[in-house]
């Protein structure tokens, strides 16, 4: 193959990676790294560098649309970025302290458990994605009657609650954010893991927002999408300086990812939340398998 032909193939593959990455808030690296290394025998160092740029591209292109539509919760993203960015720095500082295999095994297992929990949530909250939130929404914050009332005071103070227009349901979906402190802690862990292992931590961020903070699925993936762009930016400059970003490999990938992510963010608005959840869990299992594989191999 010539560079021109290779560019065309990479461009086409990256459209798919960008679309799934922005739809699921995972960034597309989880598809690109295995494809680039296994199918194209690309040097792993360059594959990770490419993936980092792809994450930034997915994040920007996806959020460019979803922020305006308020699917992305900008206040939640900004607040949680405190923990993910500090976590990423911690991870970079701790690199080499822990056994990578142990970490891959541990987090692969955590992802599998999160996947199961997310599927169970689907069956328990079958009708409305935001049922606990909508119940709480009708009760004033100070009444203390609602089960989530006590868990939401930090989010109240930060005005994190919001609403988004769901095209699949053709209505505005208001939601209450809960357990913000726990969410912040989990984001710190997610950031540290991404810094330590150089993997997209969207797989940890989406379950944290969905399961712990009770943020609707669509808002969780869109907000994760914006968050991972910020942490990717922080580390991408390092990869660039190390020479891990080859323009002739990353160029076509970046263009493809931009096109794909733009479409993915459109699809996110229209897709039914329960279907999104199922697709996400499938992708989560894929990421978990990759991690468990690295723990064994």
């Amino acid at each position, binding site marked *: 193959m010539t*560079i021109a032909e290779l560019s065309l193939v990479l461009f086409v593959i990256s459209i798919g990676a960008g679309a799934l990455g922005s739809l699921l808030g995972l960034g597309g690296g989880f598809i690109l790294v295995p494809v680039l290394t296994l199918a194209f025998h690309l040097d792993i160092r360059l594959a990770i560098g490419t993936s980092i740029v792809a994450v930034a591209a997915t*994040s920007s292109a996806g959020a460019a649309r979803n922020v305006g539509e308020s699917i992305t919760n900008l206040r939640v993203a900004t607040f949680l970025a405190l923990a993910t960015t500090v976590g990423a720095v911690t991870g970079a500082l701790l690199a080499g302290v822990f056994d990578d295999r142990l970490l891959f095994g541990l987090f692969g297992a955590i992802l599998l458990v999160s996947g199961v929990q997310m599927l169970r949530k689907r069956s328990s909250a079958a009708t409305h994605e935001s049922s606990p939130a909508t119940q709480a*929404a009708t009760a004033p914050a100070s009444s203390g009657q609602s089960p989530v009332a006590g868990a939401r005071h930090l989010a109240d103070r930060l005005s994190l609650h919001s609403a988004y227009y769901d095209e699949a349901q053709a209505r505005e979906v208001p939601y209450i954010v809960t357990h913000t402190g726990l969410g912040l802690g989990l984001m710190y862990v997610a950031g540290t893991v991404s810094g330590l292992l150089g993997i997209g931590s969207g797989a940890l961020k989406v379950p944290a927002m969905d399961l712990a903070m009770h943020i609707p699925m669509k808002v969780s993936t869109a907000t994760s999408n914006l968050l991972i762009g910020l942490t990717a930016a922080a580390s991408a400059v390092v990869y660039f300086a190390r020479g891990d970003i080859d323009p002739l490999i990353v160029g076509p990938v970046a263009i493809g990812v931009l096109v794909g992510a733009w479409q993915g963010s459109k699809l996110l608005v229209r897709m039914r939340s329960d279907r999104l959840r199922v697709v996400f869990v499938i992708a989560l299992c894929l990421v978990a398998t990759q991690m468990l594989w690295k723990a064994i191999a």
Partner: protein
Amino acid sequence: MTRTSVGAYGALVPPSPHGVRAAVGKVLHTGVLASGAILLTGYVVGLARESATFRSAATEQAHLAGKATYPHSFVAVWDGLAHGSSEAIIVAAMLMLILTPVAGLLTAAVAFARRGDWLFTAISAIVLAVICASFLLGALAR
């Protein structure tokens, strides 16, 4: 495209930071479109001026094996741009793409400040500072 919150839940939704969202969306949009356009320009320049590189299978192998050379410092990119090198143009576009989310956050910080939302101005500023610190950390570790 943006919709305001209405109905019984209206009170729940914070004084909607429409201005903030619109401003951040616009910056991200601009960053994505501009870097995409520059990337494509890099390819057009490359195909027109350095077609031998783009049509050789040996070069492809070198790039896949991580043995190719290309600009990877700000000085080298700047020099390359001055000479109209396609690789330098592509790298510059990628750096712009990488910095787009950060530009979005910077815009959010300014927009929060304009609204007098000092808590979120401070939060955004801290996040920006941490990102800058990690740039420096990376530069030192090299």
